[in-house]
């Protein structure tokens, strides 16, 4: 099952490692990824992940990360559009 996540994080050097570590450890495989710095210096990470597990098992852990300010599950077709834009 594929899931499309939009994660907004604070601009810390290790924040991408934190997000990817939790994603791997909780049993989700990253199949697409994009990262952009917003005008307010926050960072938007778009992740397409694949797993048999319910996506809430990942999102509930991601929102616990101190540097994650927002984590949304998007409809699956949106990441492709963003990446291809």
């Amino acid at each position, binding site marked *: 099952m594929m899931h499309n996540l939009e994660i907004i994080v604070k601009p810390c050097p*290790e924040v991408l*490692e*934190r997000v990817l*570590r939790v994603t791997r*450890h909780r049993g989700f495989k990253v199949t697409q990824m994009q990262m952009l710095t917003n005008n307010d210096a926050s960072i938007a990470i778009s992740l397409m992940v694949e797993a048999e597990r319910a996506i*809430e*098992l990942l999102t*509930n*852990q991601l*929102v*616990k*990360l*101190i540097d994650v300010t927002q984590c949304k599950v998007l409809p699956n077709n949106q990441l492709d559009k963003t990446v291809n834009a």
Partner: protein
Amino acid sequence: MEVGQKIRGADAVIKVLAAHGVTTVFGYPGGAIMPIYDALYGSPVEHLLSRHEQGAAFAAVGYARASGKTGVCFATSGPGATNLITSLADALLDSVPLVAITGQVSTSVIGTDAFQEIDVLGMSLSCTKHSFMVTDINELIPTLYRAFEIAASGRPGPVLVDIPKDIQISELEYKTPLQSVTEELQADSADLVAAVELLKASKKPMLYVGGGVGMGGAVAHLREFIRQTQVPSVATLKGLGSIAHDTPGYLGMLGMHGGKAANLAVQECDLLIVVGARFDDRVTGRLASFASNAKVLHLDIDAAELGKLRQPDVAIAAELQCVLPHLTEAVAGQLNIDSWVNKVSAMEVEHRWDYNHPGKLIFAPAMLRRLANKLPEDSVVSCDVGQHQMWVAQHMWFRRPEDHLSSAGLGTMGFGLPAAIGAQIARPNATVVAVSGDGSFMMNVQELTTIKRKKLPVKILLVDNQKLGMVKQWQQLFFEERYSETDLSDNPNFILMASAFDIPGKTITQADEVEQALDEMLNAPGPYMLHVAIDDAFNVWPLVPPGASNSDMMDQMEKQT
């Protein structure tokens, strides 16, 4: 201090600790943290020198768990920091508030493989609640304040702050940062209504109580709920002490080595009220068959635990201190569970522990029960990991969760001795007993020196069966008696070793020596080691075999077919 006066970053670290009420830090010095140790010299913050950074951090964990305060430990860069990792992981799995401060090489040489340089921030990602590396002196004080806030708020946990040496010697003007206010998680009112409905509809409710009750300061609230509703209860390893042991309907620990009545009652209940617990595999056995006919009401401060392993019927992520009184008020005197309460009571009587043990050798469960009955009111028992740990959980009883320190989530051998040291520092007037096994004890045995140095009156009850008992039990049951590397019959002379650290003690081997020996240990004015050679034929029972349902407990020497 005059306005505008500058101090070193290292001095600011100590000032922040003092501002947070930290009176003792546990640690070990080294090159990259020398400025902080220099600032510590002569400061009001005391330092307890361990003899290994893992021991320092476990002492900080013991301090935190015995007192409810945040523990603090120091280590230098490189090996000092890597030695902390096991203790940080232990604190993460058991939700212990801890602030670990590590020295780091100077920012100019980070990333050059400098002497004693390792990527501590990178290593910390999987074993802390959060971590920081300070690269700007102006961020030092706000970061340390934030570390204390994160460690203790919500579901507590360890926070690491890595401070490069140049930051430690840079100067800054000390200013107290504006403190952010952590919002309390409030329960949704619709969820509370649904929870009350579940409770009122239940004919056979059961409380499954975990470490979150003690960590969340909700012991009194839980006890009041039980008093007003009579709902029967069981506890996890970390939940022990949350419920007074003589509470009607309390059945002790559940799970792999839980009591029979505890496991059977949970299997039979129609509503499982999970309070500050997380469906750990050592609790549930085969998850699909765990309380499979029960609805689930799950209360926890950590929303990520709700539905992680078992889908709840109603879940509330909020402060237990707030939720429990609401539920108590809503259902007190309104539950129709008398026949269930009577049945649970009969189960408790039917499956009571039997302390009659034939022969003259020492039966560890009976000895530990006797110890529990002798301990004064202000007591702490720390354990290591293995058979003795399970016997402590099964057969001892505790007045509150802060009185029982056991490495539950990570199951770390070597936890017991340094945790006892931290507990004794936190509660200097308490009787602190480290119950250890002959395997675990050797894992942090260097901390005997810490006891000697500070003349700490820690009592050590060393339960010796000359083997890695729990592993050997599994080899006997599940690995065709192929005893690979579990024989410890070449143990050192423990009493002779203790005497090298000015710790007196004695060895006992016979059951009729136990009573007097326990009294001698507890009455010793200083540290003491009671080395107990137990009947090594006895294993930990009951046991839920791996992958089995909690209904299928083994309680005798059966081999898996």
